[in-house]
Every structure is written in structure tokens, then in C-alpha cells.
């Protein structure tokens, strides 16, 4: 039993944290996060150089990580900085490319951007309800369907698309210029896209992809949970600092016991969130990965809402403003629940398991 990071991971964590702090000061972050293309192309290359993407893939795939804890380190740092770069899309794609045994050097080096099309408007979270259809066409395939909320899709060069091939779920590679891509900024910054596929040529990557897709989602969940934990830590620190400095009625509002006890409850839930994320990370790739990913995402959904709402409430008006960094952390925590399955979806999966 060991709850410390390995030296390598600690170094990666430190260098990413330093880099993001330096390159994404709050106002710069907001500028990048809300103006097309909703990320900073220069930063993307630098992140790759720092190893952020290489850490997501195992050695045999050309990376130097790929375990749940590697993913955690990268995304927790991103969460602390509210980094809007589309690393989630890269992670999902990397898992699928690894499963396919395909080359992913361009992905890890940051020279080709990948995004993954999973959810659809009427099946946002459940993989088994995907309706996008693939059919053979000559040597290759064509796809028809619409993929919704494709993270990083607004700047992707290549899409990996989950689609039905006869009665199986398969994964296809689609060149971005062949699809109809509608990008947008997300509520909490960063970009995504709707991807409409109408007789789009595609290359088969994985023919029977149900378990590879589930693994990618599980990895994505570990990433989002870790990001949430990073964001929670920062928001909690901000809130406690504010409680200690903001004065009303002649005393710091942090001297009021009702607020103190609520701040402690936030702290408690953050520790629980951290714990379940560690657990999900440790199980990633194993036989119980899906179950613990669902547990983690459910707990993160609940804790994220608590921390976001309580931090706004305890700050008062200031946290309702765009100018205050805390409001953006709160937004991120709420909106993470809209990605890769929400509180209720994952609770249902825990029940069904």
C-alpha cells in the first residue's frame, strides 16, 4: 500500500502545474477558452513536449504511461489550471488506437489532433444505444449518423467514430474534412463539436469494439474525475481564503460557525472525491474498471455540485461574476457532470451491475 506518487509522476505533475500556471494565467485562460478555436495551438505543441500526451499511452504504444494514475496526474494538473486544451479527446483516441494496435505517434507528438465520437443526441451516454450506422463500400466503409458533444471536435484532424456495423459496435477512422463539423465553445470554456456524417468514407479501426470503447470511456472518466479533484482543491482554497478575508458585521465571515461547518463538509466531500478517483484509477484496465468508474463519476457528480454551489453561496455576489476565477471553477465542476455520463446514469449502472 502506497499513496504517494512515484518520483516520475511527481515530476510530471510539478512540471505541468508550473507550465500551466505560467501559460494559463486566469485572463489568458478565459480568452483562449471562449474564443474560437477554443484552445491555443501553440500550447498544444508545448503540452506534448512536456509529456502530457505521452503520459496517457503505455510504452508499447509509444508513450511512457497509460495507467490510471498517469492519467490522473495529467488531468488533475489541468483541473487546477482550468486548462481548456482538448486533451480528453486525445486520451479517448489514444485508448482506442492502443486497443487497435495502431500507430499513434502523431497523436502523442501533438501533430495530429484526434477526437472521438461516442454519444448521440438520443443516446448521450449509453454505448449500447449508439445508432450511427456503418456499411461496407468497396474496400472501405461509409458512415451515417450524428455524433454529439465531441470533445475537441472543433479542431480535430481525425475523428474516431463509434458506429454499428451489422450487430456489432465498431470504431472507424474518419478524416475531419469529410464530415460536417459544427464547433462551439462550451459553457465552461474549451470546445466541442457536433459531427454530422452523411455517407462519409471511413476506415475500420476496430471491428468488435464494445470493450475497447468501454475502456476508453473508463479512462475518460478517470480523467474527468481527476480534473474535478484538481478544480475542487483550488476552489476550496479560494473559498476558505475568501472566508478568512472578507469582512461583514465587523468580522471575517469565516468566523461564522454556520459557514465554517459547511466549509468542513466541502472538505470532507473533496477527500471522498479524491479517494474514489484514486480507486477508479487503480482499477482502470482491470475487470472491475467499469464499476468503479461509475462509482467515481457518481460521487464526483454529487461532490462537484456541492462544492460548486456552496462555494458560490459562501462567496456571495462576487462568485456570480465572470471576473472572479472561482465562478469558472464552479462552472467546470457542474459541467463535468454533463460529460461521459452523469450522476444518475452512473448510479443506474452501479445498480444494474
Amino acid at each position: 500500500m502506497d499513496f504517494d506518487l512515484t518520483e516520475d509522476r511527481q515530476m510530471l505533475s510539478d512540471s505541468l502545474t508550473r507550465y500551466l500556471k505560467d501559460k494559463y494565467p486566469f485572463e489568458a485562460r478565459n480568452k483562449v477558452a471562449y474564443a474560437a478555436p477554443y484552445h491555443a495551438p501553440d500550447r498544444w505543441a508545448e503540452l506534448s513536449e512536456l509529456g502530457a500526451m505521452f503520459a496517457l499511452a503505455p510504452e508499447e504504444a509509444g508513450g511512457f504511461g497509460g495507467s490510471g494514475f498517469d492519467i490522473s496526474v495529467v488531468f488533475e494538473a489541468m483541473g487546477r489550471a482550468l486548462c481548456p486544451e482538448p486533451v480528453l479527446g486525445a486520451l479517448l483516441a489514444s485508448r482506442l488506437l492502443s486497443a487497435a494496435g495502431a500507430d499513434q505517434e502523431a497523436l502523442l507528438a501533438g501533430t495530429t489532433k484526434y477526437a472521438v465520437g461516442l454519444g448521440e443526441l438520443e443516446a448521450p451516454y449509453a454505448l449500447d444505444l449508439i445508432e450511427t450506422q456503418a456499411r461496407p463500400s468497396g474496400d472501405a466503409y461509409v458512415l451515417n449518423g450524428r455524433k454529439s458533444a465531441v470533445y475537441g471536435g472543433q479542431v480535430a484532424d481525425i475523428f474516431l467514430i463509434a458506429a454499428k456495423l451489422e450487430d456489432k459496435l465498431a470504431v472507424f477512422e474518419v478524416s475531419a474534412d469529410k464530415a460536417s463539423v459544427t464547433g462551439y465553445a462550451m459553457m465552461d470554456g474549451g470546445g466541442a463539436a457536433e459531427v454530422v456524417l452523411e455517407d462519409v468514407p471511413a476506415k475500420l479501426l476496430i471491428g468488435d469494439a464494445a470493450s475497447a470503447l468501454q475502456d476508453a470511456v473508463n479512462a475518460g472518466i478517470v480523467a474527468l474525475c481527476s480534473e474535478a479533484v484538481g478544480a475542487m482543491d483550488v476552489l476550496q482554497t479560494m473559498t476558505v481564503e475568501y472566508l478568512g478575508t472578507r469582512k461583514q458585521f465587523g468580522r471575517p465571515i469565516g468566523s461564522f460557525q454556520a459557514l465554517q461547518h459547511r466549509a468542513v463538509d466541502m472538505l470532507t466531500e473533496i477527500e471522498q472525491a479524491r479517494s474514489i478517483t484514486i480507486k477508479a484509477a487503480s482499477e482502470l484496465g482491470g475487470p472491475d474498471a467499469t464499476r468503479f468508474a461509475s462509482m467515481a463519476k457518481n460521487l464526483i457528480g454529487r461532490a462537484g455540485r456541492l462544492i460548486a454551489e456552496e462555494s458560490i453561496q459562501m462567496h456571495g455576489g462576487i462568485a456570480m461574476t465572470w471576473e472572479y476565477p472561482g465562478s469558472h471553477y464552479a462552472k467546470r465542476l457542474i459541467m463535468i457532470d454533463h460529460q461521459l455520463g452523469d450522476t444518475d446514469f452512473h448510479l443506474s449502472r452501479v445498480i444494474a451491475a
Partner: protein
Amino acid sequence: MDLSFSAEEQAFRQEVRDFFAENLPSEMSDVVRSGSEMTKEMMDRYHAILNAKGWLATTWAPEFGGPGWSPVQRHIFEEEACRAYAPRIVPFGLAMLGPVLQQFGSKEQQDHYLPRILSGEDWWCQGYSEPGAGSDLASLKTRAVRDGDDYVINGQKTWTTLGQHANMIFCLVRTDPDVKQQQGISFILVDLDTPGIEMRPIRLIEGGHEVNEVFFTDVRVPAANLVGEENMGWTIAKFLLTHERTNIAGVGFSMQSLEEVKALARVVKRNGKPLSEDPLFAARIAQVEIDLEAMKITNLRMLYKAQKQGAPGPETSILKIKGTVIGQELKDLARRALGPSAAPFPGSLEGNLSLAPADHANDAARYFNNRKTSIFGGSNEIQRNILTKTMLEL
């Protein structure tokens, strides 16, 4: 015990319902339904429609142009307005300053300002909060110093809602710094065109522009603009607070939200079925629906008591707390119902694809914006403090 409305009240409800059906332009209810921002022009037009009917200043005495309604009638009007998706009346002149002037203003002030509120000539905003005086309003620092026939004002106000549309502002200012905080405050009317005033927008968490900061630098205001006596501002503020408490539970708005969430859950698909058939989501809706049913009665009970006693009591703080919690819960459910379709930042979607069903593209923004309701108008923590003192006597 009798929970039914009288025949007269029911007839009144029908009259109001018919009025909205006939007179409310559908482009206005569309805007309300979708949660997008009202333009100033639209608000002015809506006010004019009500004013033409004599229903604009629902709390004013008849001699000043009010309809002379009972609290129950006002309640019915609010319910029907929500039912029709009518815009909210901009409250600063109509619901706040109007009653203050009727109670504390001079004849000249009443004659001059009240008609201009009804006609829409003046758009008022509120200068209460300051960066250092939020929950602790009495600690406000904006100074007004008497100089001949003028007061000279210096300081800063904040959270001034819709100030960008206003030409007038009523302010609480400190006129005597040497007495107990509450005793040195005055209530004064200021023309926003006066030199030395600067208004700056505050952008809110969800991206909207709804509130402002107002800076005062050597702003000269005629002493005649003082309402009531010098240093009686706190009395006026407390009077206004009581008035603000009508409809504090926001039951009508929550009923709107509930219907919207239910409709949304019927069209959104989850796991191959409408979300309304998902047992967990259905339970979340039912839970808040039950709380809202109870809140309707709690609201009526307190309305009944206020009508008997002549004024609402401290227990209306219960309405503020529970009313905002219910309202926020409903906005939360709408946001949740959308799943990933709640993601787009309003206005950023290139092209004409939509993710959310009609009228729901702003649901995430509305959820975030709505967090304000438990903070402003006396935060829920302040309401709990009030109830501790008044009801629990601890």
C-alpha cells in the same frame, strides 16, 4: 379552514387570464420561455400594456394610480402572469421606489416622480449594495455631504440591476459618519446624467450583462432629492424590504419551471426511453413538485396572515429560503435533463444545428444565473439569522 378562492377572486383570476391571452404579445412570452434577455424596448412596451389597463403598479394606492388590489388579488395576478409567461415587471420604480415615495416622499416628489414611473419616462435602478457592504448593508460607505442646497456624493455602488437602461437611481448614502451605523444613512434620488457618475457593466458567471457598478465622484444632487428626513434612510430601507417581500416565494416562477422541466423530460431520451420514465429522474421531479405544492400553501398561509395583520411578518424569511431552494432545484433539473446538450455556451454554436430542444438552449446559463436568488435580497444565511432572532428567539 378553507383553501378555495372566493367567487369574486375566481372571477378576477379569469379576468386576468383573459387579459394576458388577449394582450400579451407572443414575442414577449417566447423570450420568457427561452430564457433569453429582454430588450429595454420590449420591457417598456410591456409596462405600457399593463399601464393602459391600470395594472402596472399593483402595490400602489389607488390615488396614485394603483388598482387597489388586496394581497390575494396581487397573488392571483402574479400567478397568472407566470402562467402566461409574461415578463417580470422591472421592480425598481414600480415595486420599490413608488411605495417609498407614497409613504415618505414630499408632495412635490410624489407629483413629479410617480407619473413618470407609470409612463416609463423614468427608468429607475437601485443604489444599495457596495463592494464592502453586502449582507451587512448598514456598513455602507458612500458619503453624501451637505453643501448649500446640494449634497455632494462620493463612493461606489454595485450589483445595480439593469442600471444600463436607467436614467435615475435611488441610493442609500451615509450622511452622518459619527453615529451608530444605521442612524447615519439617508435615502436620496439621483439623476444618472449628473456629472461625476460612471456606470460600468459587471459580466455574470454565465456571460450575461444584468448588473453594474456605479461610481460617484463629487456628484452634486439637489437637497430636494432627499426622501424623508436626513438620516432616516434605514427606516425607509426596512420599509422597502417589507414591500419587496410580496411574492418572495417565487411560486409562480417555480410553477413555470416545473412545467418546463416536465415537458423537457418528456422529449429528452435517455436509455431508449423518455427521461420522464427514468425512475431516478422522475423521483427528482416528483420530490420538488411535492415541495412546491407545500410551498404554495405556505405562501397562501403567510399571505393570509399578512392580510389579517396588515404586513408580512418575519416568517416570510421562510418563503425566501425555501422558495429559492425550490426554484434552484428546478433549474438544476432542467440542466441535468439536457445532458451533454447543455454544453454549448449560448451564442457560440456555429451554423444552425441545435442540441437542446426548443426553448432550452439557455438552461445551463439559467441554472448558473439562478444561483443569485439565494444570495441577493438578503442571502439565505441572513434570512436564517433573522429567523433565529425573531422566531426561535435564540
